């Protein structure tokens, strides 16, 4: 199987604390992967490195068919390469309408001048309508996104991610603070997205991970502890000791 993203032996240290320790990780072009692990295992730092927020001390992050190294590129450049990220806390632009949020995310030229002279085409507006329907916000397009409920904000953010048409989605705790119905819908959106692209989900909630029904990577102290199906990793004694058994 070809790989879309290959993380190769990265390490990063914060003030003497080794957050990521010789971590390697591969993901294919249309694959769902869940990352679990105790607090401080390096899950968020891993995402920071892939998206360019944190620069690793050593190692490579190779991307796409050309295996280009993402280390050293800035966040905006990496996002343009096709990596989208959803944060733990829903971060949408609360002062702006749902439509404005989505339009900002829809894949188009990102340069200051092309944005300045940009006019929404029918295709853009159709795309926004389509996305809004997909995330269940079709009737909320003109509302300020600050008015949305927590779950709706999470979906809006997922919608913005999909609008970017990324080839890899990094999703940090999407189900946090959601009602059971909202979780179910979130699962559907993610599973649907994983049919055409790679999706990496960081999650604490085992029930949610089970519903994603995908390969699981367990991180511990900055490196991979176990990898495989959920049943496989949950029966691993080491995983039980460091994570599940607490």
């Amino acid at each position, binding site marked *: 199987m070809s790989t879309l993203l290959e993380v190769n032996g990265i390490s990063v240290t914060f003030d003497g604390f080794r957050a990521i320790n010789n971590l390697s990780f591969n993901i294919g072009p249309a694959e769902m992967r869940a990352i679990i692990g105790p607090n401080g295992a390096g899950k968020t730092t891993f995402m920071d490195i892939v998206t360019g927020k944190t620069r690793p001390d050593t190692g490579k992050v190779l991307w796409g068919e050309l295996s280009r190294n993402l280390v050293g590129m800035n966040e*905006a450049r990496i*996002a343009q390469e096709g990596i989208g990220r959803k944060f733990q806390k829903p971060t949408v632009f609360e002062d702006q309408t749902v439509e404005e949020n989505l339009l900002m995310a829809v894949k188009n030229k990102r340069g200051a*001048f092309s944005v*300045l002279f940009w006019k929404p085409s029918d295709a853009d507006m159709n795309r926004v309508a389509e996305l809004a329907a997909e995330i269940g916000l079709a009737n909320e397009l003109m509302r*300020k996104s*600050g008015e949305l409920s927590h779950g709706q904000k999470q979906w809006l953010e997922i919608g913005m991610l999909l609008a970017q048409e990324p080839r890899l989605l990094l999703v940090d705790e999407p189900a946090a603070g959601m009602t059971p119905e909202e979780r179910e819908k979130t699962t559907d959106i993610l599973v649907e997205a994983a049919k055409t692209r790679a999706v990496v989900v960081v999650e604490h909630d085992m029930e949610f991970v089970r519903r994603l029904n995908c390969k699981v990577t367990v991180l511990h102290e900055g490196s991979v502890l176990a990898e495989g199906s959920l049943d496989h990793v949950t029966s691993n004694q080491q995983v039980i000791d460091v994570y599940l058994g607490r």
Partner: protein
Amino acid sequence: MQRSFLIKNPSVMIFLAVLTVFTILVTFSSEAFGAGIISTSFVKTLGKTLCLALIAVAMDLVWGYAGILSLGHFAFFGLGGYMIGMWLMYERTKEIVATSMAQNPIPPTAQEVVDGIGTQIFGVVGSSEFPVIWFFADSLFMQLLLVVAVPGVLAFVFGWLAFRSRVTGVYLSILTQAMTLALSLYLFQNDSGLRGNNGLSGLQNLPGVTASQDYVSIWFFWASALALALGYIFAAWIVSGKFGSVIRGIRDNEARVRFLGYSVEGYKLFLFTVTAMIAGVAGALYYPQAGIINPAEIAPIASIYLAVWVAIGGRGRLYGAVLGAVFVSLVSTYFTGGQAPDINLGFYRIQWVDWWTILLGLSFVLVTLFAPKGIGGLFDLIAERRTPDRHGADLGPDQGSLREREAEE
């Protein structure tokens, strides 16, 4: 989304209508074209106020919309003033020198005229040589170009260095203030080539124009009104589209905008440079009406005043910036012009010339505490966009996670 720009932004139409009516009223009350109710010096004050409103619009773009609290925009304003001042002073002096030399038995050579101008202009700083920066002073076209080019290039270089290093927030404000202070101190030196602390003077006299100041003042008033109208439309156009969405996004959550694939630095740099150019144009119209420019005009305090105007007027809405600049600068003219009657407390006499800054400081604090939307927020009362006062309590299940100040009553 395909509605036209003006229909989508009714406030632009209202603003332009008010500005037009104001311009016509002032014109027909002036000494030159009408009843003479408004003195020429007050016409100049009003014209200058419009220029201040224009730089306030620029400040609102960069601060109210993009969240960059620049304390350096008055430096760009002053530079614009210096650039046009160089031409005005050169040409004016040339006329005088040429007239006096025409009396000589032998007609002067071109070099003698230039030397004569040099002696006249730089005599006060003990020099008669033209510094290199005066190279284009004889060309109106070049100096007009420099009005936007010099602030633009300075802002671009400064912004490139600052934004690239991801300096944000209060640190960026301090940097811009340091830039302003450095520029002002440099210009105070006699060998800076711009006549040190004497500055450039006699700028109200337009070379080759024999009309009285009554007329000149109205011309500049019109030019200022036109510049404000164009600047306002331009600013409204910038913030109305996706570019506006992106810069407001940068203000609210810079990191998120980066992860959407927008190069935040590029956007900030573009906006910083463009607003510096607008500030330069405003300055180029302001100082011929003021008649004199000196380095004290560029001092950091001026840029701080600018931030105060925009804050009092209401950040993040363009008409708020205009209102703040007009209101505060006119009230300031009233208090510092000796027109306000002193208040005699018996044991102490409050003289407004001294106490005005305290009043201004106090109103700034009060606005920040009790009316964060500023004067512009008053328009929300008309538009019935009131927010419920629930003292931070949550808004109940229907309203979801609506923040208090976003909710409508």
